[in-house]
């Protein structure tokens, strides 16, 4: 731990988080009440805390509690929070700037955007009364991979990522003293998105199976299903986050890779527009940027067809979710940057996310009446394994309750929550802390895939539901346990959401839902 902190300190001293004027200067910090006094070399000041190298080691002191004297003292007024966001263009073009602008506007700060070009720009936030600059927030837009590379090189403070950090990126960051990027504390989901296949509006095709889509994307199949017309594949720029998502979620699991001879486009908007113009065109893109193209509905081999909607993305019922992440290194960011990160999980930020064309993470309730397709699936799947009695028990125990969009899903084959679900634990705990469910009952309902026996599946589902309930309970430190009942229920494979014949289908089915009564 200490080694990591020292490592972070070393990095902080080396790179840009340190205001240049404050480097290697002597300061004396004395407690405002008098008594304690320490002297040393000021390593950094982030607008809130002094980090001082003293004979006792590196100390971090709250600037509110101490007085600073000496040539190295930064002016509190003159302090300008500087930080950089680097990474995915799809995230940095509209979404993150809109969030910065909204954050600054709510703070009453004056905003000016200094533009070098579309990929390099800086927000200058200043106090309207005094004209003092409060922050300089720099954006560098490229790809997710470049963003992580910038983090390793000390050229950015935050990474905008369309995917989770890869194993090699995690290893390099650990080596560089930036902390464990795979730790949920190092990343947060800013907005939700998903991969969707798109075609021109002139294309008569409405649905496609995942298998047929993969065959077309990999070039194994060259013409449209049931037609002789050739498929013209369009794609994102080489090395983009979208291409990585395609490989990770769609092609990789099927052992396929993207076909050669794909027509590549400069950005996601150009990709969607090109497909919209090409009657034979096909591409997989992000749901937030389908432009004028039409979304092709995906189906599983058994006919179940999860639809990409705002609610199904929030509930992770759509299998090809692609949330947008912000990664932070394990070092103290300027106060204003930390406050900005705090702003991202507020309801105000969710409105901005939605306005920017992405799916927000605001919690919604889905009444039983709006779940007809799911119930139809359940009835269709009833038989010797899932009996009518079991379905009736489910209907009875969920009567009068509504499903929250907050759901929990697990990484392939494990009991570890995936990234979006890990964020959901904290989000649900915050809601409990704030008394959002006071006087009501939260039911954690476990479901499983259809592999194996029904009784065993029900046991597994119940254990998962208990684990999630316990995790939420542990995270909600301020919640009054007498005000909200947290109960557990399990129905195993009774309510399938996707076909069990594929990895992605089973992953969608293995879940813990939260119902509110």
């Amino acid at each position, binding site marked *: 731990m200490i080694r990591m902190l020292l490592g972070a300190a070393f990095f902080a001293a080396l790179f840009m988080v340190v205001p240049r004027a404050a480097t290697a200067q002597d300061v004396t910090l004395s407690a405002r009440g008098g008594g304690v006094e320490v002297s040393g070399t000021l390593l950094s000041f982030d607008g809130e805390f002094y980090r001082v190298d003293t004979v006792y080691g590196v100390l971090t002191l709250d600037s509110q509690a101490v007085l600073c004297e000496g040539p190295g003292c930064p002016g509190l007024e003159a302090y300008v929070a500087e930080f950089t966001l680097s990474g995915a263009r799809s995230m940095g073009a509209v979404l993150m700037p809109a969030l910065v602008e909204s954050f600054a506007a709510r703070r009453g700060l004056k905003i000016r955007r200094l*533009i070098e070009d579309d990929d390099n720009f800086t927000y200058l936030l200043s106090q309207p009364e005094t004209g003092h600059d409060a922050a300089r927030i720099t954006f560098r837009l490229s790809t997710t991979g470049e963003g992580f590379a910038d983090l390793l090189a000390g050229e950015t403070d935050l990474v905008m990522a369309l995917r989770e950090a890869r194993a090699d990126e995690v290893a390099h960051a650990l080596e560089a003293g930036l902390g464990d990027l795979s730790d949920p504390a190092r990343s947060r989901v800013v907005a939700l998105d998903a991969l969707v296949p798109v075609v021109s509006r002139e294309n008569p095709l409405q649905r496609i199976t995942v298998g047929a889509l993969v065959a077309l994307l990999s070039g194994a199949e060259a013409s449209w299903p049931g037609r002789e017309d050739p498929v013209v594949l369009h794609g994102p720029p080489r090395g983009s986050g979208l291409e990585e998502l395609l490989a990770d979620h769609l092609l990789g699991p099927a052992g396929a890779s993207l076909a050669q001879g794909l027509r590549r486009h400069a950005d996601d908007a150009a990709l969607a527009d090109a497909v919209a113009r090409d009657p034979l065109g096909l591409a997989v893109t992000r749901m937030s940027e389908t*432009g004028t193209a039409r979304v092709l509905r995906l189906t599983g081999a058994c006919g179940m067809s999860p639809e990409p909607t705002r609610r199904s993305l929030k509930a992770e019922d759509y299998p090809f979710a692609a949330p947008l992440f912000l990664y932070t290194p394990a070092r103290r960011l300027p106060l204003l940057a930390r406050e900005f990160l705090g702003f991202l999980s507020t309801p105000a930020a969710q409105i901005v996310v939605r*306005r920017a*064309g992405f799916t927000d993470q605001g919690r919604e309730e889905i009444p039983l009446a709006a779940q007809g397709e799911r119930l139809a699936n359940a009835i269709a799947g009833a038989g010797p394994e899932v009996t009518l009695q079991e379905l009736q028990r489910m209907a009875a125990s969920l009567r009068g309750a509504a499903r929250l969009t907050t759901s929990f899903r697990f990484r392939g084959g494990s009991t570890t929550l995936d990234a979006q679900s890990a964020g959901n634990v904290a989000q649900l705990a915050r809601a409990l802390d704030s008394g959002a469910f006071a006087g009501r009952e939260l039911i954690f309902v476990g479901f499983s895939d259809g592999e194996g026996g029904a009784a065993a599946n029900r046991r597994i589902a119940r254990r998962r539901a208990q684990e999630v309930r316990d995790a939420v309970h542990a995270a909600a430190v301020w919640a009054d346990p007498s005000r909200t009942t947290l109960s557990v229920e399990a129905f195993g494979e009774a309510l399938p959401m996707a076909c069990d014949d594929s990895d992605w289908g089973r992953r969608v089915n293995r879940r813990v839902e939260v119902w509110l009564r």
Partner: protein
Amino acid sequence: MALKRRLIAGGMTLAAAAVIGHFVHPDGSLFTVMKPRHTAPLAAGSAAALEGAAVVPLAAQPDARLLPEPATEWGLPILPQDAATQLGPPRIKADLPGRVAALDAGYAPPRTDGQRFNQYGLRCETALRAEPGAGGMVTLRLEAPCQPNARVTVYHDALRFAVRSDSSGLLTVALPALREQAAFLVTLPDGSTASAVAHLPEMAEYDRVALQWQGRAAMRIHAYEFGAEFGQPGHVWAEAPASPEKGAEGEGGYLVRLGDAGLAQPMMAEVYSFPRGTSRRDGAVRLTVEAEVTDGSCGREVEAETLQRGADGAMRTAALSLHMPGCEAVGEYLVLKNPLQDLKIARN
């Protein structure tokens, strides 16, 4: 339609005349206008107005090229500058108001504001009317008979631009309203203002974005509707602006360019409108901002503002500084896709 008018107090025209009242005599000597031959009460007023005029920022001052030439023959005694427009009641030098006031406590001196006339005998009153039109457009009609060829700055919400009135002080300008209850304000070189409001219920059907800038920067909005490419139908910009009528029929968006680039310090704006409510298509409208690299702008910062709907649905202004490429790139364009967010249209 509610009309509000406000004329600035009497000394202001006089003040403007005094500010510009330094001429160079043909013989080369600096020739200053004689001390005004006003009576005492007016002189006090003009001094106050002069003080006021001294703090007017340079940008707000009237365009010198547009001001009427002094009508006097050189060499002849010069009349006070406001004499031509002073056709109201003759001034009584013997301080009649003062003397009458001493006799009658209820006496108020006659108001002479608004009772001046121009050379055609029209009252010097500034009037503004706002008429709603198709496509959420409003036609502003300004009458300022005593201020011909004047720089008129129009303000509406956060939008602002400067145009020039004609030789009879008339101005007609059509602009897209940015709200249902739209208020308009114009300011004139003499500091007088006029305002008008219009109600545009159909305004809610429109998505609008605007770009505005000051100075000689060559900037444009380009809108590419539903996948249109440059020069194709559906590419809407200053050189293919489409019409508000087309917008009203749900065919597509239209662009209005506002401001007079020929003024000394131009204030320009472009507004793109898309009829979201009546659109017959759905998809995306891509919006880009284009700035031409010119001899005047190369290697410099160019300031501009964008107006677009914020998260709360209200129009929000964002200040931009564009770092223009160096002068070797003169004639090229800086094209920015991100300052204006694309419109996503879902058909009802």
